[in-house]
């Protein structure tokens, strides 16, 4: 039975909208405070500020392209492509929490709010987040753009406006995608489909970002101005506003692109807020339902299960570790929030091999396996950080009441779950893709070995710096702890150094010797790190 909201109430309620926006703004800006006060163990959260600072630095490096003396349109296009990718990914990964927050249902669903008003409030919230990140990314390029060929002094104003429009486009595209999913899928299919749609959207954003450099490679003078390839490319629509706003010469091409951008954004907005809003109300009601899960069909034989259990029993000898492994596995497989946060980010881990597929005709370069293993190195750390938060954080009090001296076993269980269910499959997919890339795939694969050997040790870092307790923190927008950012950077740097050494060893043909030395060193480091993790006393603040 479908809900049909009355026609007379279908208009927007501005009083409610204003109140909801004020509330969401407060929630977004006070998230860290709440976490610290509510659970007493959130620590210092500088997540969003730190992320913004990283974006500002990334934007600064992107500004360097202005040195190539490219025209305004091409300069803006590169910036918009980068923004499209980064902001699109952020909007995609945060949209699950913003649009379908389960903790909100008991507080809001029985209030007389039309789904259109609620959806609009959440969409504006999403635009705010996207525009904030886009603003950070474009802080320096906005002024560096003045040096682009043909730019006039009001380039910053035009660029700010076009970046805002791009943020609106990214957010409305995400809202529309969800709107369509909830319209056509029931509660049971919604969870899985929403998670996998996010993965697809992430691929789209990442893949799209890779499209531009390849296109630029086809043009001699580093200008894409006037290229018909630009029409299906959303960032070009918004880059056209920069050209219209402040380039010395404007062409019909720019006007056509800009018109396309406005038309598509307008159509998506109309669809999201006008047409899909009622199904959003139904979706929220559906999400409030708790449905018993039918028993999973038995896919394995008794013998296989016994053998697998024997291996797993040995690997997970510690009962606390085993329980923690099961907890993490259950959340990765069944919890909608965790899936929505975790799966979209997985796409970035196989993107390098996929990029390689685009250039199949050439011999496989060292770049792809090195970059693949470099990004895969951060996968367990990223997944463990995702598993650290849950809207059911209060349930983590079980760790406080249990007689635990250290959080080590709990940490090892979660770590093993992420390695077993995420890292291993991702490594297999990446290896298969590299093998099929073209000639020399197998040879290039050897380059990845030193990185693969080091990943399990690198994944111990989160447990060294902090008491790792899964699902113990409330999720927040951009909610990465500063310690986690340090861990991520530490992981990236160590994996980067290893990639450089691997390349050197490969070039100078002492790869196998290096691998032998590395195995000994990694075993030692592994032992030291495990000791360090086990030595940490659990301090429950």
């Amino acid at each position: 039975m479908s809900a049909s909201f009355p026609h007379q109430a279908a208009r927007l309620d501005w009083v409610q909208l204003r109140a909801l926006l004020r509330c969401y703004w407060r929630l977004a800006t006070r998230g860290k405070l709440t976490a610290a006060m509510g659970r007493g163990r959130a620590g210092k959260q500088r997540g969003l500020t730190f992320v913004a600072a990283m974006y500002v630095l990334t934007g600064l490096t992107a500004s360097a392209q202005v040195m190539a003396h490219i025209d305004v349109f091409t300069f803006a296009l590169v910036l918009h492509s980068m923004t499209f990718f980064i902001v699109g990914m952020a909007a995609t990964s945060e949209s699950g929490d913003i649009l379908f927050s389960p903790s909100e249902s008991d507080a809001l669903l029985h209030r007389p709010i039309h789904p259109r008003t609620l959806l609009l409030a959440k969409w504006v919230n999403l635009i705010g987040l996207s525009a904030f990140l886009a603003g950070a990314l474009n802080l320096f390029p906005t002024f560096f753009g003045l040096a682009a060929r043909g730019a006039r002094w009001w380039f910053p104003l035009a660029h700010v406006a076009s970046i805002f429009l791009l943020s609106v486009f990214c957010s409305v595209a995400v809202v529309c995608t969800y709107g369509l999913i909830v319209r056509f899928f029931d509660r049971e299919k919604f969870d899985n489909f929403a998670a996998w749609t996010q993965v697809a959207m992430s691929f789209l954003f990442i893949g799209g970002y890779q499209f531009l450099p390849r296109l630029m490679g086809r043009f001699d003078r580093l200008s894409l101005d006037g290229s018909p390839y630009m029409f299906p490319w959303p960032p070009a629509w918004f880059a056209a506003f920069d050209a219209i706003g402040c380039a010395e010469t404007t062409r019909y091409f720019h006007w056509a692109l800009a018109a396309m951008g406005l038309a598509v954004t307008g159509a998506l907005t109309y669809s999201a807020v006008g047409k899909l809003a009622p199904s959003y109300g139904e979706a929220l009601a559906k999400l409030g339902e708790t449905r018993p899960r039918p028993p999973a069909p038995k896919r394995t034989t008794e013998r296989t299960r016994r053998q697998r259990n024997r291996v797993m029993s040995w690997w997970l000898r510690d009962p606390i570790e085993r329980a923690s492994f099961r907890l993490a596995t259950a959340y990765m497989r069944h919890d909608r929030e965790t899936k929505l946060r975790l799966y979209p980010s997985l796409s970035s881990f196989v993107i390098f091999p996929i990029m390689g597929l685009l250039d199949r005709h050439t011999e496989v370069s060292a770049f792809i396996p090195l970059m693949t293993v470099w990004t895969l190195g951060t996968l367990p750390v990223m997944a463990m950080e995702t598993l650290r938060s849950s809207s059911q954080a209060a349930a983590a009090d079980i760790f406080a009441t249990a007689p635990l001296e250290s959080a080590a076993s709990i940490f090892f269980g979660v770590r093993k779950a992420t390695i077993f269910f995420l890292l291993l499959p991702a490594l297999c997919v990446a290896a298969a893709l590299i093998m099929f890339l073209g000639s020399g795939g197998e040879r290039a694969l050897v380059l990845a070995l030193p990185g693969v050997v080091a990943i399990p040790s690198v994944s111990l870092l989160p447990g060294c710096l902090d008491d790792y307790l899964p699902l113990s923190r409330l999720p927040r927008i951009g909610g990465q702890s500063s310690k986690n950012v340090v861990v991520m950077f530490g992981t990236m740097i160590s994996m980067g150094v290893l990639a450089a050494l691997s390349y050197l060893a490969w070039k100078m043909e002492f790869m196998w010797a290096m691998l032998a030395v590395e195995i000994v060193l990694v075993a030692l480091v592994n032992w030291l790190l495990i000791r360090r993790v086990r030595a940490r006393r659990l301090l429950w603040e």
Partner: protein
Amino acid sequence: MISIRQLTKRFGSQEAVRAIDLEIPAGQLVGLLGPNGAGKSTTIKILTGMLLPTTGTAHVNGFDVVSQPLEVKKIVGYVPESGAVFEALTGWEYLELVAALYHIPDEEAQARIGRFGQFFELDEETLRDKHLAAYSKGMRQKVVITSALLHNPQVIFFDEPLNGLDANAALSVKTLITSLAREGKTVVFCSHILDVVERICQRIVILHEGRILADGTLTELQQRCGEQSLEHIFNQLTGTRNLLARAEEFARALTQ
């Protein structure tokens, strides 16, 4: 008043509510009881417009919960069992948000929040300055109850409203609930604290496995079951036999 006809709610193959019929006139205080999973919360969520029924109809003061959910939501108040609030807001900010959602003018809202604050002995400084995350469970429950009553609803659903309240606050809330019913509000009171239900409710409805097992005044239920206390009536209708003996046996096994 509330009118339910053949109301059914299915979650997949499981029927949480099975073709129930129920009429609750205005001004009546009804205790809705049942073991866990009996369908109480599902029924309440349907009546507050949070869930859609699979079949059947439900009307609240003449408004259909399916075709007129916003009209229903305007006249009902709901205290959820979860006590969910936005923890990053102060109590005052949260109540201001609720007031705005019901279009209560600012000045009126401030006055009403102040009055509730006084009734629940929540001092204004705490309400204005402290975030809900820092409130004790009892204080938070007082804010939740206030948020359900702020717009002066005609029909009120209380799902375990005494959770976390101290003895004095619980007494205040119980008195408030009976007074609201006397003032003509329709009140549905869900609780597992049977002696409270026994004392304050004019009528008792017992749900089990999605069906209504018993519906009547306490005296009617006593006559029907031949038991005096509601606890024993409830156990006779819904519980397992030999509870006492089983509990003793289990405790013995546990300590051995």
